[in-house]
């Protein structure tokens, strides 16, 4: 079993809040720390524990069931069901439980805003398709072979026409500088070793020695297992 918030494997101590498992650390971050004291701590001083236990139970109840009775007017989904199962009942739930949903999105992905394509439009795959155009072999039945062959021929013709043009018009220096500017901002941890090596060469060729040494350090660090 893993912590729903940070994903760490739960071994000894599993804390369930609304039936969702968390690790002790995350439970504390989420503000449940005061409920996580050990029995020794709770029962340390004579007589006071009973009051503390009683007030803790009251607060627990408030936390668990305070707003959990909130329900969606369209599908009848209760907030507590969403908290427990992580699933919504209908589109209207997005309005009803908006605050909780946004919190959940942050908890799961650290984001709540959309960054993808619009409905009915294809995604722009600049980063993927500029390197190598992926062509899957999956075919739907309706794909007529003739159509495909002619498409391929067109693509081939297009490619052969485009190549010399690129050579003539492409300003390699500008392209290299653009790449270097991108590299400076890039999270180096996201680059493969191969990419790093290529980047080092590119930086050195363009006399950007500061960047080259930064990249070399990253690569060296990886090789040394840092």
């Amino acid at each position: 079993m893993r912590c729903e918030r940070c994903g760490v494997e739960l071994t000894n101590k599993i804390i369930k809040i609304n039936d969702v498992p968390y690790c002790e650390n995350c439970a504390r971050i989420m503000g449940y720390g005061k409920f996580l004291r050990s029995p020794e701590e709770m029962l340390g001083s004579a007589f006071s524990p009973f009051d503390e236990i009683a007030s803790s139970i009251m607060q627990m109840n408030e936390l668990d069931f305070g707003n959990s009775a909130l329900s969606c007017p369209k599908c009848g989904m209760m907030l507590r069901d969403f908290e427990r199962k992580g699933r919504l009942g209908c589109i209207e739930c997005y309005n009803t439980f908006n605050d909780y949903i946004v919190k959940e999105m942050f908890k799961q992905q650290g984001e709540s805003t959309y960054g993808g394509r619009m409905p009915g439009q294809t995604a722009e795959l600049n980063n993927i398709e500029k390197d190598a155009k992926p062509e899957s072999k999956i075919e739907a039945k309706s794909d007529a072979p003739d159509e495909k062959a002619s498409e391929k021929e067109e693509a081939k013709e297009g490619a052969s026409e485009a190549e010399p043009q690129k050579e003539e018009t492409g300003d390699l220096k500008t392209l290299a500088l653009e790449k270097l500017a991108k590299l400076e901002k890039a999270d180096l941890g996201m680059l493969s070793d191969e990419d790093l090596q290529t980047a080092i060469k590119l930086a050195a060729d363009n006399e950007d020695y500061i960047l080259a040494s930064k990249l070399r350090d990253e690569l060296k660090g990886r090789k040394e297992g840092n």
Partner: protein
Amino acid sequence: MKMWYEREGADEDVVLSTKACLVRNVKGYNFPSKMDEKDAKSLLAKVDSVMDKNAFSGGLATDVVNKGEAEALMKAQISGRDGSLLYSPDKKAIYYNEDYGLSVAVGNSEHITIKAQAPGHDIGVYRVAEKVAVDLEKKLDIAYSEKHGFLTSSVKLTGTGLRILYTVAIPAIAKTEGGIAALRQRVGQYEWNIYPFADQGELNESGVYIIASVSTLGVSEDETLERGEMLIRDVIKAERACREQFATKKKTQMKDLYGRAYGLLRFATLMSRREALDAVCWLRLYRDYDDSSEFECKWKMLNTITQEVCWEQQRRGEINTQTSQKKRAERIRKILKGVD
């Protein structure tokens, strides 16, 4: 027609398959968990009316099951490992193409789940799934908000509704001390996730892992694919390097295990799932270093065995009986003989 996973693919020594899953919901209907029977039937009819019948077979899940397609859907990794897509078949529909590499499930945990699968390393699956999604988005009123993107029943999918999954066979990393922990850390840096095909039970040491995208918000499809491609290239490289270490440092043992594993798979009469996958692991580790050329052992064969054993339909009362073990051994012998 062969199943999609029986074809050859790129980097197939490490990557068994690449999958792209896109989920969409239709406005005007509750999500499946809160949908009544009348709405469920209306949704199925609505989606059916816009599905391209020239491209897809299938239809109502009840009819698909009655046609005896359940086993094929399981093998093709469409109906889920537990066959959950076929539970309550009267409320669901399944459409699939000839080699089962492209499928559309209606009424499962989301209204529409589009799945494109290809053998080996092939990120082109995204475009294939997207083509179907765009077509449906044009014909149906899809639940979408500018703020959160495509609205889904599970908040984990809200946004792009996209999951990219690479199924990888990485026995060398798994057998290297600290290998999986290091890989897990690397995968985490890309904000992706890695988990074993099975945590426990017969298949827990299969060396098969799934590497899956996590983020659907705050990232574009392009960024998701780019991260996945960078990550999978790293995984392929690391696995190959680990295999080389094994093959060079423990050559005699590896050669011995390779021969024994081949013999077991090629000639055994009874075979458990664990035995089969364990043997395939040893073949994977040494296959590229075997210079004897005594065995006919193509990657395509190993991948077919792995995928068929992993996604085998487990009928109640039939798990690891002599009959199921015999049937499995026969099928593996056939694959290695190159009969199919």
